[in-house]
Structure formats: C-alpha cells, structure tokens
C-alpha cells in the first residue's frame, strides 16, 4: 500500500480496523430491513460512507481499485434495472409490484416475498449512486492541473 497518499498512519490503522465492520453493518441493515429498523436506503448510505472513508483515508488509487467510477455507474444501472425487473415480476400475479413470491414464515430472514430482494436492489443502487457522486465531486476537479484552471 502506498504510504504517501491519503492521511496519517493513525487514520489508516483505525480505518483498516473498522472498515470491515462498517461494511458488515451496512449489509446487515440491508438484509434485515424487513424485520428490524433500517432497509435499503439506510444500508446503502452506510456502505457509501464506508467507501468514502476508504477514499479519504487511503487516497484515491486504493479506493478506485475496489470500486472505480465506471464500476459505480455499472452497479447503479444494474440495480435500477433489477428493481424495475422485480416490479415487472408482479405481472405474473396480475399487477405491477404484486408480491408474487411466497410470504414465508413471519419474523424469519427468508420471508416477506419481494421485499428483501427490493431492499438489496435499492441498497446497491443508493450505495453506488452516492459514492459515484462523491467521486465526481472530488476527482473530476482534481484531475485537472492548476495551469488548466488558470487558463479558463
């Protein structure tokens, strides 16, 4: 890992310790959205915050290796289409957004039909979207050299 990019050694060490926990917590919030407080929106924003933390602590090269700008666009579009596909799946049962999958037993992880699937799609979508806009805000301006800025 490049020692010179990013923040100080203390920040890097702490980030290395907590990054996995943040990712786990975000995934837990997404998966258990239909049983406990949370859901796709909250979990997605937590995952995006985890990526932002990696970006700020280790510098842009490390974070973009995990999830590049192109990657965020692809994940974003895929998740949006997955959500739309789940909505269209309802036509099997008759209407848009009909809950076609078996409800299962309440208060268990595999229950509530399409709701966990939609939560996962929204979580991925929100995470990719917000990390993408963060990259756009930070990187697109950094990519230009100061001389170029002077020229304009």
């Amino acid at each position, binding site marked *: 890992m490049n020692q010179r990019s990013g923040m100080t050694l203390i920040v890097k060490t702490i980030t290395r310790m907590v990054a996995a926990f943040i990712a786990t917590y975000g995934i837990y*919030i997404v998966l258990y*959205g*239909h*049983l*406990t*407080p*949370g*859901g796709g*929106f*909250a979990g997605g*924003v*937590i995952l*995006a*915050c985890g990526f*932002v933390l990696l970006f*700020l602590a280790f510098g842009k090269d490390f974070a973009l290796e995990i999830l590049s700008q192109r990657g965020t666009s692809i994940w*974003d579009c895929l998740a*949006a289409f997955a*959500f*739309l596909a789940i*909505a269209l799946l309802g036509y099997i049962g008759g209407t*848009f*957004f009909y*809950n076609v999958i078996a*409800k*299962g037993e*309440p*208060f268990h992880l595999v*229950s*509530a*039909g*399409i*709701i966990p699937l*939609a*939560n996962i799609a*929204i979580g991925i*979508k*929100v995470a990719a*979207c*917000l990390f*993408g*806009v*963060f990259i*756009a*805000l*930070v990187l*697109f*301006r950094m*990519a*230009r050299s100061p001389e170029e800025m002077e020229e304009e």
Partner: protein
Amino acid sequence: MEVLTVPVLYILLFFMILGSIVALEARDLLSTVIAIGAVGYGLSIIYLILNAPDIAIVQVVVEVLVLVILIRATVTRDDTTYGQPRDVFALASALVFAGLFLGFSYYVFQWMRPFGSPLMTVAKDYLAQGLEATGAANYVMAVLLDFRAYDTLGEATVIFTSIIGAYVILRSIGRKRRESAFRDDAHS
C-alpha cells in the same frame, strides 16, 4: 420515559432553531457547515424519540455525507461575502412574508389534529393487514416497498437523474470543445 418525550422535543426544536440561525449568520463558511451538522444530528434525535428509528438511522448517515460534500465545497475556497444582505427589499419582503406565514399557520392550526393523536384512517388498515398481506415485520418497509412501491420507483428515478446532472455539470470539457470555445472568445 413517555413523560420526558415532549419536554425533550421542545428542547431539541429550540436547539435546532438556534443552530440554524448560527448556521446562517456565521462569518466563516466552515462554522456554517458544522452548525448545519449539529442541526441535522438534533433532528435525528427528534426522530428517535418520536418512535421513528428507521428515519433516525437514515438521517444520521445522510448527515455525515452532507457534511463531507459541503466541506468539499467550502474548504480551500476563500469566502468574500460578509454581512450585508442582498438588498433591503429582499430583507423586508422576507420578514413580512415570514410574519404573514406564521400568522396564517397559527390560525390554521385550530383545525388540525392536536399533536399526539393522529388521524390514521389509512394507516389503521395497513397496520391491521400488513403482516398477512406482506409478511414483513417492519411496517415502514411494508408500506415503502409493497403498499406504496410506486413512490420508491419514482425516488430511484429522481436520485438517478440528480446524479446524472452532477456528472454532466462537473465533467471536464473535452479538448475539442475547449479549443472551439477559445476561438469563440477570440472572435468576440
């Protein structure tokens, strides 16, 4: 615990009002950003004591990202505007409008349901049938992704559009475009 809800709510609302005044009147832009962060965290505690844990979680993490984005906008840029409002007319019209609005809302509140006893005609059905109809124990998710899923689809579209807008605005101008832009400047 239930006795404490309303006093804590008042304290937090006054804290938010003070924090937003500080945010708008502070000289330094960094102080503005920090103050708006304090307002947002106060709001998330309000959501928590109003029995809305889902929204409290979302508010906390969204506040973190808003802070990061706003600090990105303000840091290393020198602030040039101090004090003076835009003009006297704007200040006067804003104050008159605020007074009128508060007066009318004071008048309208007589016909609203008092705080603490909501009118739950639709929600009663959702609460009664939600578990059999959707199988989800979290009723907020049941409403969000089953009963009112169209809203969520619209929300996904809106956030997609806003991100595309940010990309278009921030993208560096291509070389060809920039050269032609310079030529136009030379001509004019």
